[in-house]
């Protein structure tokens, strides 16, 4: 392979947009053709510091799934992560893995199928999902879960509900955190001989004259977020680069490019390194991005604790059992079992935090004791001996609120909500037993649905609408799987399914040099 060049210097769509300020739709076509051929050549690195077959960017679910599969296919693998800790958001997520038609579901008498999961994903995604990508996730979800259990060694012990799904299909790790899977993946990847390099940041991809990705420029010893830190190095990827670098929920500047409403007034549930430079680096190398405007806010975070916190694991467990009200009126205002976007939008429209509550019977049945204790200890969840006391604590009109709770309890008995059509579970009981648990809710930026365009083989698509040779992507760095709204628990499924595909195909790619 002769005369590779660093693709940063190409006239990329992104740079063009930034300088010319034109609308994307009108200009993409015109920019698609000249991308590699006409660009000024950047010098080939004088030498590659390291050579591997497959370079994976990111140590979350997707990156490590790719690393494990690539190692199993006998490829040499280096995995880099810019942060000083491994796992990215995967290490701090809630540990719910959406999968359809699993043994665990069958054992619980839950009837489910990949078709139903796909239907739920598409409906929530406002049918903007790329159907073949969503279908791939739904169809391979059960196998991906089984691989995570039997091959990787993660343990899952319950099946949860998340808003927007038709049935309970979120298989949760015993740790109640994605760490339960990602730490096992890390162990597995290391045991298989993948080299894991933390604090190594992707700066830009290197492509040859035909636009094939041949490696990357990185900074080793990088100290987030100091962009001048670390030492430059070039990693040669003989077969392929897999981008599994996550989303950009914590990149205020970038997310405001797509959704100007998401100012720094909105905090995020994500780890601090959830910023978008790797996606941008891919775009500069000719990759296409899509649906970047769809940025999800989680409707279940509490303003009374930081980050993701404990409260989401209370809220999502009591949805379909307890009720959510507007404390200003003491009345329900939105379907508790609605999807994330519907609920977050409804709360933001209130203009102040909402309140969710459930009684002792429903709470202790549904909520993990460790999560419950965590939320009570940090004050984000409170408990009250009476409904009246709860009403007063949040300055609600007592009579109206008491009536609302009674009305909700009759719906729970009938298992039907004629007011707002909330899904009510068969085992839900009227909320009458003290103590009553309550938490305030205010949304946080949680997931970026958009990202790099990929096909069902996890190949990244360029602006000529053809796969970029030598570049794969998986997980939150990609777009299209979830459309407008990602359903809870579908991130783990997406990451593991497409991470595995990316790893397998990267290892199969013919080496360039």
């Amino acid at each position: 392979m002769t005369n590779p060049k660093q693709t940063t210097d190409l006239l990329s769509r992104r740079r063009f947009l930034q300088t010319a300020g034109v609308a994307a739709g009108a200009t993409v076509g015109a920019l698609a053709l000249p991308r590699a051929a006409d660009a000024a050549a950047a010098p080939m690195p004088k030498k590659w510091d390291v050579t591997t077959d497959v370079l994976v960017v990111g140590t979350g679910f997707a990156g490590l799934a790719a690393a494990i599969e690539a190692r199993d296919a006998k490829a040499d693998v280096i995995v880099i992560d810019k942060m000083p800790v491994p796992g990215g958001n995967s290490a701090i997520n809630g540990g719910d893995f959406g999968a359809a038609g699993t043994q665990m579901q069958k054992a619980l008498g839950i009837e489910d199928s990949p078709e139903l999961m796909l239907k739920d994903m598409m409906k929530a995604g406002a049918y903007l999902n790329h159907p073949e990508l969503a279908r791939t996730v739904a169809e391979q979800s059960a196998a991906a879960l089984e691989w995570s259990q039997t091959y990787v060694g993660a343990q899952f012990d319950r099946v949860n509900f998340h808003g927007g799904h038709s049935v309970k299909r979120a298989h949760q790790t015993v740790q109640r955190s994605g760490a339960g899977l990602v730490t096992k993946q890390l162990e597995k990847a290391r045991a298989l001989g993948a080299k894991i390099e933390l604090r190594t940041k992707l700066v830009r991809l290197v492509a040859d004259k035909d636009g094939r990705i041949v490696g990357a420029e990185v900074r080793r010893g990088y100290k987030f977020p100091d962009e001048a830190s670390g030492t430059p190095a070039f990693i040669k990827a003989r077969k392929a680069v897999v981008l599994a670098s996550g989303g950009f929920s914590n990149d205020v500047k970038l997310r405001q490019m797509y959704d100007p409403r998401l100012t720094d007034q909105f905090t995020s549930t994500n780890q601090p390194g959830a910023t978008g430079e790797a996606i941008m680096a891919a775009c500069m190398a000719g990759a296409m991005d899509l649906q970047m405007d769809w940025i999800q806010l989680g409707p279940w975070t509490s303003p009374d604790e930081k980050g993701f916190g404990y409260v989401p694991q209370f809220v999502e467990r009591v949805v379909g059992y307890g009720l959510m009200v507007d404390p200003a009126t003491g009345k329900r205002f939105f379907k508790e079992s609605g999807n994330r976007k519907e609920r977050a939008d409804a709360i933001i429209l209130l203009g102040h935090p909402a309140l969710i509550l459930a009684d002792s019977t429903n709470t202790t049945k549904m909520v993990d004791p460790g999560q419950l204790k965590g939320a009570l200890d940090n004050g984000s969840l409170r408990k009250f001996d009476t409904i009246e006391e709860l009403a007063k604590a949040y300055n609600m009109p007592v009579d109206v609120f008491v009536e609302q709770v009674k009305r909700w309890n009759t719906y729970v008995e009938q298992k039907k909500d004629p007011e707002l059509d909330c899904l009510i579970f068969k085992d839900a009981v009227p909320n009458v037993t003290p103590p009553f648990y309550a938490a305030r809710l205010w949304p946080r930026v949680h997931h970026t649905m958009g990202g790099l365009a990929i096909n069902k083989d996890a190949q990244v698509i360029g602006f000529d609408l053809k796969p970029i040779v030598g570049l794969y992507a998986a997980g939150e760095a990609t777009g299209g799987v979830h459309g407008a709204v990602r359903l809870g628990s579908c991130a783990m499924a997406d990451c593991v399914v497409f991470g595995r595909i990316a790893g397998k195909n990267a290892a199969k790619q013919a080496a360039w040099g």
Partner: protein
Amino acid sequence: MLVNAIGRAVPALLALLLGAALSLPASAAPARNAKAAPGDCAACHKAEKVLPAGHPATKGMKLDACAQCHAPKSEQALGGKLPGMHLHQLRGIGCAQCHGDLKKPTEVAHDKCMSCHDTAKLVEKTANVKPKNPHTSPHYGKDADCNLCHHQHAKSENYCNQCHKFEFKVP
């Protein structure tokens, strides 16, 4: 050159030996002298007053001697009150023992810390710290890099608090 390579934020060496409230000096970090003997503040800090008035002379002292007044776990304990390198220095652990060849010092990797410190013992030692044991977590197990929290040339930080609200005192 060593000085520039290793770090920039070195507060006054023994400013806190008395156990008075911490006040890192506003002045720039002094040039670092790799040959400074433990307790010899002036070797780096020159004429700068880094000890409170009336503090006993420290020249020639090592950490054990400091501990006679600054008893560990007491109000006067030094941990958390001055950058960790001073504690290492007072134990006789000089620059070279962590950074290697001082003409070309290297960044200290986690494994280097582990060549003296024992993770398992550390986890056990802090088992009863509230609200959580800081040396083991569901997210990163027992293998988190010491330097996430325990900085040697800058004020330590509580890495957990990016998301949590754990009121740890971080030495």
